[in-house]
């Protein structure tokens, strides 16, 4: 059984997903990459996630739907959630907070900045 903190990332842009997995794996996390929102919803109860990282715009189910499903599930209701979006308007930030996201990060981001934020959120 892995002793590394488990993180679930939902990101449909393959290249940015790979970059996040690479960086966070190097930082000592065990990362699972869901390629769409529905896959992320299906994985919500598969492990004891220490953090969920959710892109907003994804096929099949968007990040808001995944976040809502996570908050409605007792196993992930209190799991920290980091929301990623390339949109620049404040309404996305407000919606993230309303739905129970822990933190919001605008894309594009510097991978080192993401890693620092992830450490902070996982360590609580």
């Amino acid at each position, binding site marked *: 059984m892995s002793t590394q903190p488990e993180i679930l990332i939902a990101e449909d*842009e393959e*290249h*940015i997903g*790979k*970059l996040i997995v*690479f960086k966070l794996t190097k930082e000592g996390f065990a990362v699972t990459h869901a390629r769409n929102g529905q896959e992320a919803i299906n994985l919500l109860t598969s492990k004891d996630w220490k953090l969920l990282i959710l*892109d907003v*715009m994804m096929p099949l189910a968007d990040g808001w739907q995944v976040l809502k499903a996570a908050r409605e599930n007792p196993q992930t209701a209190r799991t920290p959630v980091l929301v*990623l*979006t*390339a*949109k*620049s*308007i*404040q*309404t996305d930030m407000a919606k993230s907070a309303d739905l129970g996201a822990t933190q919001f990060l605008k*894309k*594009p*981001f*510097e*991978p*080192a900045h993401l890693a620092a934020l992830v450490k902070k959120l996982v360590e609580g």
Partner: protein
Amino acid sequence: MDWDSDPELRAMRDEFVGSFGERKQTLTAAWAKVAAAKTADDRASALEEVASVAHKVAGSAESYGFPTLSQIGGAMDDLLSFGSMPAGADGVAAWGTYAELLGEALGEAAISKKNPARFETDPRFEVLAKEAAKAAEEAE
């Protein structure tokens, strides 16, 4: 990120750069559909395809060391999401120059494998950035 000293990172960036040609082709094909659309629904659907390319470039390119591509893609994404295309052929032509701009920048970066910074001072980008900022502000 130290792209050149880590072979795995370098391979990831090469793979990302290798996607620019296909992104440019998708963008060009989607814009041709916008220009040829006979109905508002067809045009809206084609604009969504253009926005999807711009959105993905915006969200990923800077993380791989191509900030200019993210800036152009982000401005296009904002304009397409929040703005309204001016009516008639002039509107299609005006927005078409922005699609061309992103396509040219992707094409140049695909060949040089470097951030195409010169496009930040392209007059088309200056107009696009202003229009996108205005559209996003009005959407708040």
